[in-house]
């Protein structure tokens, strides 16, 4: 993962987001981490329906919870994976949802990995650190802005 790749985190829970951010940064990741608290905000950014500044040709990786208000994680995943440019974005589902139907649906839609959040903070921190260390040795694709 290059330094200009942006890590998008779609997470409603403040505590979980803080833990994700701190754990990623503790592995030496200096990439920009941008948070979304609902699916609509995230889609607006990716489909450039927002005035917020972002790169024309960006490298993005998405960590996303299934349970999000407004538009949930499965719907966001479906929209991203149907769009020819955005479909390249690696999407890691990181969620408390642990039912086989949701898991199968996300894999069918094309999530890169599906990870259930550990119950205890210690385990959660450790899991996110391992995700971060793995991401540091992974290549991220370029996506161009969608009009």
């Amino acid at each position: 993962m290059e330094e200009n790749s942006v890590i998008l985190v779609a997470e409603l829970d403040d505590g979980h987001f803080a833990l994700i951010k701190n754990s990623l940064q503790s592995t030496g990741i200096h990439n920009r981490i941008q948070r979304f608290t609902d699916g609509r905000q995230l889609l607006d950014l990716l489909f450039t329906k927002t005035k917020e500044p972002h790169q024309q040709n960006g490298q993005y990786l998405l960590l996303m919870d299934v349970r999000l208000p407004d538009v949930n994680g499965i719907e966001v995943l479906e929209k991203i994976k149907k769009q020819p440019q955005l479909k390249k974005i690696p999407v890691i589902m990181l969620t408390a949802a642990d039912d086989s139907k949701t898991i199968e649906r996300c894999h069918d839609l094309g999530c890169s990995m599906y990870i259930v959040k550990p119950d205890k903070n210690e385990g959660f921190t450790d899991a996110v650190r391992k995700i971060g260390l793995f991401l540091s040795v992974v290549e991220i694709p370029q996506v161009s802005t969608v009009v």
Partner: protein
Amino acid sequence: MSEKAVILVAEDDAGHFELVRKNLWLSCTENEILHFKDGQQVLDFLFRTGDGEKRQQDQSYILLLDIRMPKVDGQEVLQRIKQDRQLRKIPVIMLTTTDQVSEIDRYYELGCSFYMVKPVNYHRFMRAVENLGAFLSLKGIRVSSINGSV
């Protein structure tokens, strides 16, 4: 991985496979690891063709896939898997020496989960594979079982 997912490794370089196997064996102790020496072997296994071992019903898999392989290359293997309604659920991690941007984009477009470049430097290669092993060892990882006949 909490479920007993089988890790498939398609890699024609014996030395690279040994490094990967050793690391995964240490981190993913509960997962079976199967080795395929070319793309045709892994397709035969997944699509249940040929004379060799074939995939089991209702088993879950993760595939580590090299690009440059004899007979059938990694690109075709990935395409075949992602075009199949059942097999497409298998997470495929590319593990290759090619680091061209156009290649990276293409493989993500075809539906790989992640694209990893094998560093030429031995120690960096070891570290990359260690990080991969630690990631795959996460208890929270869930993979779908693959059923249906192809």
